[in-house]
């Protein structure tokens, strides 16, 4: 009953007229960003975050708006998958498989509507899972000391490459680079300047918003120029929607199964939304293989991955909110947002900032209902925007990112840094170095160092404290498995996902 009461308080925060407005703006912008090919959820939040801060929104409003953006991008990804056969973001890749063939059969409207419903079911159930699991996990995590946290951070980095990642050593290299960036500036514990070289701009360290926008959004511009491939794609016309209750009932069991699998994939470290949609699609195909026409436009093939990736996206919030350890690039950016608002995620947050946490959870529930309505009757708006060629949209999005960065610093130095990180991001992407560990490193570096220090103080300088308790040993073993699993399972999974995608093309 306690939880219900807290949730009611959350709704009281989320449902003020002002916050409803921010949730609507966020959901709309999120869907928009999600459906633009190339701009994933992490990009979207990174670009909008500085704007949110410079508008001077309160912690709850900013959080509600940005979580709505997050939820929105997950809905948006499917639109370009279905209409253009280009996934708006990586998790939406599996939606192409049946979404595009379905649209080619003249059922684009049905595919969009059914996938919106599946997305809704996935998100909604996952948020309920979050409500049940998060407080339990938070209570358990209260027993964690600095040594456990240090190990947990290592776990986050080790599993970040994900099961689909390629070379784990490159994840290690990226992590080291990111953590190094975080040491620039005045050391908070001792007041010593580190790697500032007397430059005043570096005293407070490099703002990670600059790093995120540079690495993701600006480098995307370069990649776009290089590929040029996304032009001239014919978009499928959306006919009038003809949907019966039977059609919805037909995909309901699939959506429920997809949600469950997706949620589990989301909560586990290192799996994330891409894996969530992959697993739910493949399993559904295995189960119904003979009775369906998967790959040729089966509605259930649209529902399964959408329920899966939305459930996973919300499931990924569980470790982020309760432990302060994000499992994916997008949740890392959300964590950045919390830290910037002076809220340190972790078990203490559920006690100290209970109103914010439950406000966000309530906003997620409400935002999903909003998104469902936005994505069925208003789908035409997004389809129109998607028909504007990327060659105009990309430069404009870049400018919005620039405005955001300029507005937090009011100086051009940060803009030069952003461009520099853009070039760096492009080069690293060409070298197959993952960018997410870099971002996460700059973000978690200071906390990680503090935990290491505190652990050392507790033990009087004995390094053994880092692996002396049962919990730490467990965490370390999972970390090692997480780092090595990609070498074994990775190539197999990647080949399967790719093969599945190529069938359609």
């Amino acid at each position, binding site marked *: 009953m306690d939880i219900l009461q807290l949730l009611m308080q959350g709704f009281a925060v989320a449902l003020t007229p002002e916050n409803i407005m921010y949730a609507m703006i966020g959901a709309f912008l999120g869907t928009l960003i999600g459906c633009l090919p190339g701009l994933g959820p992490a990009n979207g939040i990174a670009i909008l975050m500085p*704007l949110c801060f*410079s*508008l001077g929104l309160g912690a709850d409003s900013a959080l509600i708006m940005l979580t709505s953006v997050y939820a929105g991008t997950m809905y948006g990804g499917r639109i370009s998958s279905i209409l253009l056969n280009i996934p708006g973001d990586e998790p939406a890749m599996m939606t192409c498989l049946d979404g595009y063939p379905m649209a080619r059969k003249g059922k684009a409207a049905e595919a969009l509507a059914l996938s919106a419903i599946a997305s809704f079911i996935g998100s909604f159930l996952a948020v309920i899972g979050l409500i049940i699991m998060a407080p339990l996990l938070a209570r358990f995590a209260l027993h964690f000391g600095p040594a456990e946290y240090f190990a947990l951070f290592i776990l986050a980095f080790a599993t970040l490459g994900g099961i689909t990642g*390629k*070379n784990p*050593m*490159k994840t*290690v*290299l990226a*992590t*080291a*680079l990111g*953590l*190094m960036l975080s*040491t620039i500036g005045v*050391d908070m*514990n*001792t*007041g*010593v300047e*580190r*790697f500032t070289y007397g430059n005043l701009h570096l005293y407070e360290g490099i703002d990670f918003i600059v790093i995120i926008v540079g690495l993701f959004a*600006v480098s995307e*511009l*370069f990649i*776009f*120029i*290089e590929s*040029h491939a996304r*032009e001239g794609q014919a978009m499928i016309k959306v006919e009038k929607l003809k949907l019966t209750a039977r059609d919805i009932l037909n995909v309901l069991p699939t959506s429920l199964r997809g949600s469950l699998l997706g949620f589990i994939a989301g909560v586990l470290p290192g799996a994330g939304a891409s894996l969530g949609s992959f697993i739910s699609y493949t399993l559904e195909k295995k189960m119904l293989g003979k009775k369906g026409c998967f790959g040729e436009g089966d509605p259930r093939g649209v529902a399964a991955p959408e329920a899966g990736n939305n459930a996973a996206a919300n499931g990924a919030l569980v470790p982020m909110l309760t432990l302060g350890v994000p499992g994916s690039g997008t949740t890392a950016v959300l964590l950045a947002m919390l830290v910037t608002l002076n809220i340190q995620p972790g078990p203490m947050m559920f006690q100290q900032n209970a109103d914010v946490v439950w406000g966000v959870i309530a906003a997620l529930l409400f935002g999903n209902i909003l998104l469902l309505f936005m994505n069925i009757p208003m789908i035409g708006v997004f389809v129109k925007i998607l028909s504007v*060629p*990327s*060659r*105009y949209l*990309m*430069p*404009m999005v870049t*400018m*919005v990112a*620039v*405005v955001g960065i*300029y*507005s937090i610093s*009011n100086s*051009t130095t940060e*803009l*030069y840094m952003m*461009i520099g990180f*853009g070039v760096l991001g492009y080069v690293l992407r*060409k*070298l*197959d170095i993952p960018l997410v560990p870099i971002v996460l490193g700059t973000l978690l570096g200071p906390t*990680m160092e503090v935990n*290491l*220090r505190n652990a*050392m*103080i507790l*033990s*009087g*300088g004995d390094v053994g404290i880092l692996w002396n308790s049962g919990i730490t040993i467990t965490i370390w073993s999972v970390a090692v498995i997480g780092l090595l699993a990609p070498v074994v399972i990775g190539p197999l999974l990647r080949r399967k996902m790719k093969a599945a995608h190529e069938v359609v093309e």
Partner: protein
Amino acid sequence: MINDRVLGLVGLILAVFYGLGAQEFQPAFGGGGAIGPSAFPTLLAVLLAISSIYLMVKPDPDESWPPLKTLGELAIILGVLIGFVLILEWVGFILSAGLAVSLLAWRMSAKPKPAAMVGFSSSVFMFALFTYGLDLALPGGTLWGMN
């Protein structure tokens, strides 16, 4: 092969300089407990050095770099971005962003006329939206006597 080897070499050089630099930090008031300000950076330098050496010894197969012509295109884009920041505070947001969006769209194979139209109308729209709608101060341009 060669990509990862060069990356490894650059990483190793960075690790050495970063690591050496970290040894010079002296805590002002007797240190922060068991670990001073240089311990964590030293750890990172070692981590970077190990992964760099590994990449030099066991490099992955190369991704292909774009042809020279595309690299030239990328250099132009970079030039446009830097040029935009250079003149931003001088001529103001409307002119510089309009120019930047037009040039970028043009290099992404839009025709010059629609590119310029989209570029400048979007910059005017953005300026109006952010300055009047959202109360964010964007540079008006010192050239015209505005801040």
